[in-house]
């Protein structure tokens, strides 16, 4: 991939072979940094990166907020039900990912019951009707729906291991329920949150199918851009450059997060 990003796009797609070019080295060096210059010469590609990061961050945060209560409910419930509940969380995986996304197309469509319901409530308050499908909102829903289990499962495994005695001890020492959560449960669950966040954040960042299917006219993400470079533009070097920039940025962010989450920085 690194090598590809320094090469020239072929006439029919693919790449210009290096050995042919070496004969005519003056005209075509075979390897070039032109692709990177093209990437950095234009702010528009950064804008897409920023936007994708925003979507991924938002999805991750909402997933944490939604998954936390559910995961702790499962962790605290009786053993008999736990397996059943985990099964229910995993159940959607039994059907194909694309079919589940297409299902959202029907649920959010302008003639769907949900749309009619929301719009009749909105019109009651005198607000103009909204379209749910083909919007950033639809993309976000799709992203959260698909990736929520990836947040629930690591969180559950983490929360399940917590020793309830600690909470009892905190209560005995006079901590309120909020304090018990914030000073006992939350710090202990951080590893689960971080692994869950990584499992959600990184796939969301590269996702192209959901914006393609549920997104409107402005919901392009890096995944779509990279896919386009390989399939419709047939510009492999630029696609590779974009992929490398994406990988680098993910590495930087993961590094930053794990530095922030390193043990001992938090005073309890």
């Amino acid at each position, binding site marked *: 991939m690194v090598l590809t990003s320094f090469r*020239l*796009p*072929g*006439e*029919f*797609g*693919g790449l210009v072979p290096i050995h042919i070019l070496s004969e005519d080295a003056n005209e075509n060096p075979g390897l070039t940094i032109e692709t990177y210059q*093209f990437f950095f010469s*234009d702010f*528009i*590609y950064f*804008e*897409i990166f920023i*936007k994708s990061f925003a979507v991924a961050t938002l999805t991750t945060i909402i997933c944490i907020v939604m998954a936390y209560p559910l995961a702790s409910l499962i962790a605290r419930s009786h053993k008999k039900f736990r*397996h059943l509940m985990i099964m229910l969380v995993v159940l959607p995986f039994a059907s194909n990912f694309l079919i589940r996304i297409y299902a959202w*197309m029907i649920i959010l*469509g*302008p*003639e769907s019951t949900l749309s009619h319901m929301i719009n009749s409530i909105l019109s009651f308050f005198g607000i103009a009707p909204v*379209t749910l*499908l*083909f919007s950033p909102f639809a993309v976000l829903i799709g992203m959260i729906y698909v990736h929520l289990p990836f947040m629930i499962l690591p969180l559950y495994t983490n929360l399940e291991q917590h020793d309830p005695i600690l909470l009892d001890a905190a209560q005995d020492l006079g901590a309120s329920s909020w304090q018990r959560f914030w000073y006992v449960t939350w710090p202990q669950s951080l590893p689960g949150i971080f692994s869950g966040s990584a499992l959600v954040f990184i796939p969301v960042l590269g996702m192209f199918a959901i914006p*393609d*299917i549920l*997104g*409107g*006219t*402005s919901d*392009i993400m890096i995944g*779509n*851009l990279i896919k*386009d*470079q390989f*399939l*419709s*533009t*047939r*510009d492999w070097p*630029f696609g590779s450059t974009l992929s490398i920039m994406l990988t680098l940025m993910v590495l930087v962010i993961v590094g930053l997060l794990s530095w922030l989450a390193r043990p001992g920085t938090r005073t309890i």
Partner: protein
Amino acid sequence: MNSSLILMRLNLVLLILISVIGCTHQEDSIVSTQTSTRILQIFNWNNYIAPETIQRFEASCDCYMKQDYFSDNEEMLAKLSAGATGYDLIVPTGNAMDTLIRQGVLIPLDKELLPNLKNIHPAYLNTQFDPGNQFSVPYAYTITLLGFNANKIRDLGLPTDTWAIIFEPQYLQKIKGRVTVLDSPRELLAAALLYLGYAANDQDEAHWNQAKELIIRAKPFWAAFSNTSYIREMAIGDLWVSHGYSNDLFQAAMDAQKTKRPFAIDYAIPKQGAVMSLDSMVLHKSGKYPDLAHQFINFMLDGKNSAELTNLIGSGNPNVTAKPFIRSELVQNKVIFPDEDTFSRLEMITDLNSTQRRILSRIWTEIKLR
């Protein structure tokens, strides 16, 4: 722990089952090669030949036909470059065929074996992609045009014969959120260029930028960029106007009719012109039976066989002997049999070089982001 072990075992059993099924399937195909001498391998668009046509050909040639499918030209080219072989016959669109010819992977046709070639209307022969039809014979075509919900558009009093309906805010504001355009840089750019009065293949960057401005101005009114889902959305009435392919809109119209919707789907070629994608039959070098492939091409050039495809999917038909076999309601359809005036306004898209592709991709990215 226990449950995961059971799961693993189940997986193992499934795997074994799958491999057993796979094996038996393979044996089947080996048996069939032995009993029948020849198998014609075709790399074709999905649903691009009528089942009864296949049956008749198989009966006439004492052979089997096997098809693999692609859903766009890029996919077909990519699979071939990645080493897919064994195809006697491929059905690419003009510009992709151009690529195949320049790559030198096609076999020139032997016209002696194709007496039915005279059935093709001369307007479809000798195209810029294959002068003299050395390698290709026209199969069928689709036109990129505007489809609309006839009842809605009539009620709103909007025009249906111009690209203005998807580009001009004065029309768009009445159908906001009920319009889709193709998720294809070349097709959408072509539509915008045609509306601005340029050629669909115009390669002037200044004109491209003008087209970009036009698209960005119209974009807030569009629901989405869509290549396939518009068929269903048109058929159930969620969409009122879409920029799409005539074959797909034909399917949407049929679906709406079959499910007895209270509206009709119609489509028309805008007066500024439109893009025509002519698909041709070509012979690939890796094929085993070029003579059988010639026989198939000649068979498909027969009016009846060519007509069956049009009856099935509403494709444009370049065959002059097909008309008597076409369903009566389709004969008058200008998209299937364009008159001379209409035909003169149709353009075929040519390929861009890698620099132009990168510039276009840059424009496309900006369109998608704004």
